[in-house]
């Protein structure tokens, strides 16, 4: 009992410290991430930052790296797998011999890269839609995101056919697990997106943003999507609105693909990359995977996607575009006067893709041989003019066809009147041949050829003639990657032709 007096102060003391502890325990347990933003920290001007993240998605390997090159170009009659004979034999079987397998890393990455871009775009689009009164700048951001989404879906629908259509921001895993949509549905989304992009995107941007998406980019892409559905009228209208009053293509052909020619007036849509000694994570692998496969100073990359004889012999005599498209093994090449090593038994490639040939002084300055700084040209004026020519021809507007063909050829001539005679025929079939030929030599190794052949319906004959005899009709589409089908647990169904 005598301890009672001793207890009380002790109890009081503990109670006091307890209550003090409890009140500060709230602060003790309030901790936000250090050195990072959270969504609560965002201000209203943040949509632009999210759009830039979507632009960054273009540098994903699936969109601008080897998967893109393999699916769009190696498969064509212009190019072969390349590299050494024993490297990537499984890829050779798929892309040169059309023995598609359903689980291959290049195809899987292509799928993932494009859906990644779609996801980044959806984040912006949905976020803007949730606003009550978006200002003009925010609407432009949404238009940029819509272009990127349309571009991604366009590639997906050309490559796989029916693919899942996800046009909302995904907050839970299960939402993203949707079945395939029909090709028409995908195109409907593309049309709607590009329609808005074309209406809202500005004509040009501040000097801080060379290469940022403009109205011309949206219209040029629109024209291409219409062309793929043989909608000639709409294609022509879109292409002509891009061309406007221009009567000649100003950038000389041999400068379009150099470092100095990045974001030139010729360029409409270019995937931007930068790479310096200190900044090494903002490059793309586009040049590296196609760089000359040599030793020592000539180890410029993996050497894939090499032009073949079929493309080399497609050029007319004296066509200067041949020397800009093909880098010749075993001889000195303009404009840097470097001597490319000769083909060997192990690496038997007489030609390399010269449109990714980097300037040796830039290589020295960045201390890298692999060209990670080289932008990827996706859409340019030459392409738009030829699209206009093709559409016009289908509609019988012969004079316009000749005008457009001459625009392209005269730029290629570069003032030398002795080569590349102007096209004069007015026969529709002959003009079609001329346009198709011009597309091949103007856009050689620019990742257009395979899909052009498929949409013209001449893929089987051309491949047979070029020696790529494995091609069958179903090979116009790739099978949907098996890992994606596995992850969907039955919701996603494989292409029935496979």
């Amino acid at each position, binding site marked *: 009992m005598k301890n009672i007096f001793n207890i009380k102060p002790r109890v009081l003391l503990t109670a006091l410290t307890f209550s003090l502890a409890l009140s500060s325990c709230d602060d003790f347990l309030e901790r936000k991430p250090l050195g990072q933003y959270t969504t609560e920290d965002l201000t209203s001007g943040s949509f632009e930052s999210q759009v830039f993240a979507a632009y960054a998605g273009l540098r994903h390997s699936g969109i601008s790296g080897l998967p893109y090159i393999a699916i769009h170009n190696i498969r064509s009659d212009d190019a072969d797998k390349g590299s050494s004979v024993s490297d990537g034999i499984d890829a050779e079987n798929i892309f040169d011999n059309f023995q598609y397998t359903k689980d291959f890393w290049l195809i899987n990455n292509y799928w993932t890269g494009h859906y990644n871009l779609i996801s980044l775009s959806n984040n912006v689009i949905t976020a803007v839609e949730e606003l009550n009164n978006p200002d003009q700048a925010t609407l432009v951001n949404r238009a940029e995101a819509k272009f990127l989404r349309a571009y991604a879906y366009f590639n997906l629908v050309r490559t796989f056919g029916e693919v899942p259509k996800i046009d909302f921001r995904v907050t*839970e895993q299960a939402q993203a697990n949707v079945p395939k949509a029909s090709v028409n549905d995908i195109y409907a989304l593309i049309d709607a997106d590009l329609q808005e992009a074309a209406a809202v995107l500005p004509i040009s941007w501040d000097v801080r943003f060379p290469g940022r998406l403009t109205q011309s980019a949206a219209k040029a892409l629109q024209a291409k999507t219409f062309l793929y559905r043989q909608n000639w009228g709409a294609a022509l209208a879109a292409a002509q609105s891009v061309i406007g009053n221009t009567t000649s293509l100003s950038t000389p052909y041999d400068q379009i693909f150099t470092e100095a020619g990045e974001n030139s007036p010729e360029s409409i849509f270019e995937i931007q990359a930068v790479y310096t000694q200190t900044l090494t994570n903002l490059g793309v692998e586009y040049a590296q995977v196609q760089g000359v496969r040599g030793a020592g100073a000539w180890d410029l990359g993996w050497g894939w996607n090499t032009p073949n004889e079929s493309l080399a012999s497609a050029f007319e005599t004296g066509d200067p575009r041949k020397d800009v498209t093909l880098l010749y093994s075993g001889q000195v090449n303009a404009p840097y006067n470097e001597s490319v090593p000769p083909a060997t038994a192990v690496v038997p490639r007489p030609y390399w893709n010269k449109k990714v040939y980097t300037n040796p002084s830039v290589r020295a300055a960045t201390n890298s041989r692999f060209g990670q700084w080289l932008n990827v040209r996706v859409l340019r004026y030459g392409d738009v003019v030829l699209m206009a020519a093709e559409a016009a021809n289908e509609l019988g507007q012969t004079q316009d066809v000749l005008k457009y063909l001459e625009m392209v050829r005269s730029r290629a001539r570069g003032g030398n009147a002795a080569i590349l005679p102007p096209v004069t025929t007015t026969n529709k079939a002959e003009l079609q041949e001329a346009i198709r030929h011009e597309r091949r030599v103007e856009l050689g190794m620019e990742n257009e050829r395979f899909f052009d052949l498929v949409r013209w319906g001449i893929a089987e004959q051309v491949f047979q003639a070029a020696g790529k005899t494995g091609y069958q009709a179903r090979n116009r589409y790739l099978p949907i990657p098996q890992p994606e089908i596995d992850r969907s647990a039955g919701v996603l169904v494989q292409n029935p032709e496979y």
Partner: protein
Amino acid sequence: MKNKLLLLFCLFTVNLLYAQEATTISGTVTDANSGEPLIGVSILVKGTTTGTATDVSGQYQLSAPANGTLVFTYIGYTTLEQPVNSQNTINVSLAASASALNEVVVIGYGTASRRDLTGSIATVKGTEVADRPSANPIASIQGKVAGVQIVNNGRPGATPDVRIRGTNTIGNVQPLYVVDGILNDNINFVNPADIESMEILKDPSSLAIFGVRGANGVIVVTTRRAKTGQMQINFNSTVGVKNVVNRIALTDAAQFRELYDEQLVNQGNTPYDYTNWQGNTDWQDQIFQKGMLNYNNLSLASSTEKNRFYMGMGYTTEEGIIKYEKYQKITVNLNDELQVSKALKFGFTFNGYRAKLPQERSVGGALLAAPIAEPYNNEWGMYGTLPNFQRAQVWNPLVDIELRKNTAINYEYRAVGSIFGEVNFLKNFTFRTALFADYGFNQGRSYSPIITVYNPEIVNADPIDSLVRISSVSQNQNIYTKIQSDYLLTYKKAFGDHNLTALAGITSYYNSFEGVSSGRTQGSGDPIPNDPRFWYTQIGDVSSTTGSGNAWDRATLSFLFRTLYNFKNKYLLNASFRRDGSSAFPKNGGRWQNFGAVGAGWVMSEEDFMRGQTFLDYLKFKGSWGVLGNQNTGEDYRYPFYPTLSSANSGVFGNNIVPALEPEYLPDPNLHWETVRSWEVGAELATLNNRLSAELTYYNKLTKDILTTVPGIAGTRPGLGNLGEVSNKGLELSATWNDNIGNDWSYSISGNFTTIKNEVLSLVNSGYRIVQDPSRTEAGYPIGYFYGYTANGIYQTNEEIRLSPVNTLNEVKPGDIKFKDINGDNVIDENDRSMIGNPTPDFTYGASLNVKYKGFDFNTDLMGVYGNEIFRNFGRGTFAQFNYPTYRLDRWHGVGTSNWEPILSTGRANNYLISSYYIEDGSFFRIRNIQLGYNFNPELLSSIRVKSLRLYVNAQNAVTFKRNTGYTPEIGGSATSFGVDNGSYPVPAIYTVGVNVNF
């Protein structure tokens, strides 16, 4: 004392006349060690059923014949028989028996007597791990404890992979370590020689008190304290050598040429020109070395009535089995306890640690490099490249090992300390408050040299390839801080037959990390020299500077409560409860969570009806059930609830870079910690005079609300959610037999056996799976199981292909692997995949044998696992040509030449699909340790003032019986992907000799 003796004498002489009659005998029974009276000791008159028990003051009284014998029995003590010899007062002292039942074990936030506990706690004494050749004490537990699976890593200074009772979850499955009261996840700073004992807590009633950190099990490490008595100085030293005993069999140059030529023919390629490649190199020989190791420890312990002081110091150097790998560490351990007065005690502990970490190397390159390349070219004085079919993907292994040797200088420092105060008041209360702090500093700098190699294939120029063209340096520093405070109030009282120990407390824990790194390259200047004096980011080109930083912190506040109650030492009840609040979740969300457990036990051997029998010395039935928590979300999600915006990906326009913000993931608003609901039942017994003790337990654990990050479908990135359930169940059996043969021989044999059945019960939604080829995790299967095709032979002829089910995956030709048509639809497609292996073993087992004869002691530990599979993943890629393992010499190259090894050709994609061709049996049996020691006779030593001297020789991992082709059958990994052999680091055999001296 004299009077008592006189009285006894008188009584004795008087009672002599009445020797045959029954007399009343009384006396007191005490504990031989402490002198405390023992309550409830059973006293039986031998040969009769007459008996009684001691009361609360240890006294008894009964009637027995003068020539009879009294038998005194008490659990945890050796039975004593005392002849009456006509005495009337017989006082006895009982000694604690050799069995561990009366031992005091360390449990969370306190200690308890083992017999009062309803849980499963295994104890490993410090002496068992002190003389083992491993710098990490946990590695030495392998095979000794039922329910604990340890996968060792052969690197010097590496932490082993520990899983207690199966793989609980998908995230972090590492158990919690408690070192002298401080909760920790990294115990590199503990010197095995300073360890007194380690307790492994496995069951819910022991783990619930750890709340949100207890779900994966707890290993409590107690460092040595001075024992009452004089001063003791101890020195021990071990010296030894390590060696890789199981190499992977790879082809030599002649065999390689044979196989590669055939492969090129199969692929339709031109034959290879070997003119520049005439070497015959065994790359494994080139990179391996015999590693030396040396451990030295000195400790000083001194204690008096009032003060106990202990100091231990250790110095360790250990080399790895790859050249130039070296690990050095220095540890200091200090502790002191001062008994200020009978009621007040203060003390502190301090652990200091400094280590120089080895530069980690991997064996991967040596397994892939072709044997036809010469390692070094004398003419040009450089290391050579590899042939062009692998030059871009694989470097000459010696380039990394020789040209980059000693280019990473990494130091690790830890300062772990605590101070505590303990006050006893009101007879039954004890209040203890302790403050702990753990500061870890890591400091490192590294250098990347210019690398040029000799390439014989360059013509018309110097045959030199430049692999790395600019030199660069980098520096990094980081600090981990952990601060913990405990306030614990314990109440201990015996009310008649009821014994109660109750604990209530508050504990807080704060954990933070801050790191900074920077780097520079030579830029346009001169190369940075290969001399450590220059390796700071002050050198080099200023414009090439890169840098970054990182920080996070987390705080937890908890309330805990526990009671240990027993009635007459017969009926036991343990209950515990803990409420944890964490800073990782918001106030209005899942911030506070409750955990608890209840356990019950029945010591049947204490029952009256059991007193008559002598077969069982001790029998206890126990069971417990509880809810535990796991807060370990690992590196990626320090703040799971706060969706962070990453600025890692910038936008680029021309040469302008603009910052971009991108959500890292999308959080689930209802996020909370995952919980493990588990229960166990078991029995412990001791028999045959406590020589045999055994324990059998059945455990069943269900992990719910697993925090899982699900990889996205269609490019999306959802975040963390409580989306899974995993179950682990099995049996644990352990037994020990101790005995003596005569006076000179004593031996003990112990064994343990554990079964594990692991299954993922649900994950996100039905059909969802985490795929990390070749491992998969999905509902209805064990975690991380292997999924693929079943190889069923090789197609010998085209005719056979025609007659077999159609393979729609690839075009198959003779020499390809024939897959089994699992679903019987006569077509081989993706639906013919099934579970082809499970990396979790069906059961694990261990045994040890100790024999002592006079001064000699011999000890051997054995262990093994059975029933798990390993996926052989090294060399499965087709992105370059690698060296061949020798089993490829059995390849198919014609009808009937092989029915298992497929044709040599990288173009046959069919053979590279995930199938049972790559599955190997992971079961193994290992003689883990053999030790022979000799203790010199103390009398001989006293002349040189040495109290004891022991010499020993030890062989660890001497022999392993395994069935896989990799270096070691022990392959760890993450929780969802383990058992995949990518050419893992070998676990070497280690031979040591050592000495242990006490002054």
